[in-house]
């Protein structure tokens, strides 16, 4: 990936320099040449988009491209979103300096991280510099990173948050709060896979409820018929005695109303899942990284590539998730959070199985690239 992108970047740069000199590019007007580039960038891959971004960043009069940093940022973003490391780094620089975009250190760090994760060395230095508290990495003395590295203990590497997400303790508090509050209010342990199950099985559930209602009505009719028969045979006194007895037993069991098997209607689980999605939307808008996209992000593309085949992969993976969670009787929330915290044997074993498998699979994937 990196060698190819360096080569293509060099090619773009060469084109950039050669076009004004050659003059014989086949285009009659500079506008035509620019349109050709834009057309290629629109339909081409991230390399073309990064190339056009670079042209906008420095300007190329021969191509009729005026220096326009906000346009450069737009093209960098498009390439960066597809996992182009150079574009990610360039976008990080733009966010850090507020060129073409509003200055945003959080975004800068995010894009530096993305590039660093792909092995971009300068981006990695930037991330380290920002993590060590230097606000202006360029002006920091050259010895600073070295000193930081020496002071970094094992504990730091585990507990220091290198991302722009919550710290581990904030996340732990949030998960525990949701788990406990859910149980406290709903009087049932949190478990998301069963919500899917309830929704998917709504038809059976409606059927069941209908039969139950029919049975209750029937039983009333039967009772009435039996009562009439008893009166006819034994007279009113015997019936009064019988009813008194029934009343007593009804009081003992807490009313004649049958206990509803499932307290929460399946429709409420639809609300639950829908609001979970809206929660993701709201939070990502608040974080400023909401983008509608047809891929799963740079890290996903690094492991599985990008293109239509990832939809198939996700579908197959999804089937495993759906089938597996129901087979194991719980998922990350039901087994992992609610179950493990109550030391339930099924949950401890289930969590170990799915976590262990995910670790092994991910390590194998990493080796295969």
């Amino acid at each position, binding site marked *: 990936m990196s060698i190819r992108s360096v080569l293509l970047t060099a090619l773009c740069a060469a084109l950039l320099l050669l076009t004004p000199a050659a003059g014989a590019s086949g285009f009659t007007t500079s506008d035509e040449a620019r349109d050709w580039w834009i057309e290629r960038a629109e339909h081409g891959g991230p390399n073309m988009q990064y190339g056009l971004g670079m042209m906008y960043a420095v300007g190329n009069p021969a191509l009729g491209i005026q220096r326009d940093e906000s346009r450069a940022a737009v093209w960098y973003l498009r390439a960066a979103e597809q996992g182009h490391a150079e574009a990610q780094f360039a976008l990080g620089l733009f966010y850090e300096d507020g060129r073409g975009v509003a200055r945003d250190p959080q975004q800068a760090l995010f894009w530096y991280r993305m590039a660093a994760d792909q092995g971009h060395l300068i981006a990695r230095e930037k991330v380290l510099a920002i993590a060590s508290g230097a606000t202006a990495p360029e002006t920091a003395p050259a010895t600073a990173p070295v000193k930081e590295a020496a002071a970094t203990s094992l504990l730091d590497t585990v507990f220091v948050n290198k991302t722009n997400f919550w710290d581990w303790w904030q996340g*732990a508090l949030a998960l525990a709060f949701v788990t406990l509050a*859910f149980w406290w209010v709903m009087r049932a342990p949190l478990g998301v896979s069963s919500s899917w199950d309830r929704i998917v099985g709504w038809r059976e559930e409606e059927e069941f409820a209908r039969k139950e209602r029919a049975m209750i009505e029937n039983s009333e009719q039967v009772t009435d018929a039996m009562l009439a028969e008893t009166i006819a045979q034994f007279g009113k006194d015997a019936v009064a005695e019988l009813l008194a007895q029934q009343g007593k037993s009804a009081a003992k069991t807490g009313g004649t109303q049958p206990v509803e098997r499932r307290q929460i209607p399946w429709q409420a689980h639809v609300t639950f899942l829908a609001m979970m999605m809206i929660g993701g939307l709201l939070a*990502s808008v608040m974080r400023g990284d909401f983008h509608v996209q047809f891929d799963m992000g740079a890290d996903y593309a690094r492991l599985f590539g990008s293109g239509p085949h990832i939809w198939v992969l996700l579908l197959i*993976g*999804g089937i495993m998730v759906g089938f597996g969670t129901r087979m194991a009787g719980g998922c990350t*929330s039901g087994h992992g959070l609610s179950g493990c915290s109550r030391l*339930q044997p099924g949950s401890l074993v289930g969590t170990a199985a799915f976590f262990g*498998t995910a670790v092994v699979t991910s390590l194998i994937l990493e080796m295969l690239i």
Partner: protein
Amino acid sequence: MNNHLRSHLFLGLFGLLMGMSLTFIGFADYGELHRMFVFADLRLLLVFAGGVALSMVGFAVLARGKKLPRKSLHKGSVPGGILFGLGWAITGACPSVALVQLGEGYLPALATMAGIVTGVLAYRWMQARYFHWDTGACEV
């Protein structure tokens, strides 16, 4: 308050809370999750372990003497877990995260969701026809 309305209101609230938390934690971010699985970044592992530890204390205090549904070991625990672990590593999604990913704008999460529905349906069918296990699944 109407029981139905109450269910919708509270479950909706918890859904919102959970979806937002998962995004802020980065649990729905494939890269973050993958870095936890390959032990390149232990933050998410600490989040999860911390969440379980705090819940353990919470349950011990709040649920003392109360009867909670048990989750016993059964034939499906291990194979089901292995299957889920594979799917989790491939999609980056557990049943809640697929929805959060879609909310964050990752459209391919729709494929994951379609897969989950298919998988749940397939299991219901298999369970009714062949397995007949008592999975002790969380009956809400």
